[in-house]
């Protein structure tokens, strides 16, 4: 499912993905294991969340940006 709504806010799937990154930076595979979502959806969702500015990627690991941290508070 899409992770970001047309209004720019994370969907429920997006929120689950963001919350999985609360403690640690994770790879897409690790997010899939943690959330139980299929890997293809996680990859697609992380791309949307990155484009929306909620996560950033460094060397294949995804972590929350300040916007990402604020939205899951």
């Amino acid at each position, binding site marked *: *499912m*899409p*992770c970001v709504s047309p209004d720019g806010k994370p969907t429920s799937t997006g929120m689950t993905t963001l919350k999985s990154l609360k403690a640690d930076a994770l790879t897409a*595979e690790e997010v899939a294991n943690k959330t139980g979502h*299929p*890997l*293809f*959806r996680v*990859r*697609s*969702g992380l*791309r*949307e969340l990155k484009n929306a500015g909620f996560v950033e990627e460094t060397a294949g690991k995804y972590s929350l940006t300040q916007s990402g941290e604020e939205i899951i508070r």
Partner: protein
Amino acid sequence: MTEENSQGTFPVLGQKAPDFEAPTTQGTLRLSDYKGTWLILFSHPADFTPVCTTEFIAFSQIYADLRKRNVELLGLSVDSVTSHIAWIRNVEEKMGVKIPFPIIADLNKDVSKKFGMIHPGQSKTETVRCVFIIDPESTIRTILYYPLTTGRNMAEILRIVDALQTTDKYKVATPANWKPGEPVVVPPPGTTEQAEERLKEGYECKDWYLCTKKLPPS
């Protein structure tokens, strides 16, 4: 190698599947999102049509079996996302079947043309019933084309997945009408010496070029 004509490209077995980015009922997806999993990419002529509806119900019914085999499903037609959503909601409401996999909305035919899914002898605008079985390295391993009037056989699609995965795991081939649990074909020998040795290796051989063996229970 790819065959190309005015309808686009016609991929062939063994080549890397062409990558794409496309809108689907589950967000924008790329072929590369499926790296590491098997993928069945299949096209149907149009939403809200009878044979396609029976196929989508049938694909949904084997989805759990496919996922146990690390296989995902991805549908495609040249309808819009809105049409796809309306159709799958209708299927759920009227037939009680939830469509769990994404469907590409290929309105501009970008993906259809890359995969040779439009066959003018069948329809100049709709995709025929294609099935592409793509392995975790994005290599096309099986291509099936069905005409507009013939719905696909899910048991055969599952059988092909089992055969391909068995071939990869055990480096064997599978005979006609093979099903999991049945003997598999040992690759034919490449030299006369191997042909001689073949007959002493405990396989069940009709002759030196046709030997089968049983696989360990999985």
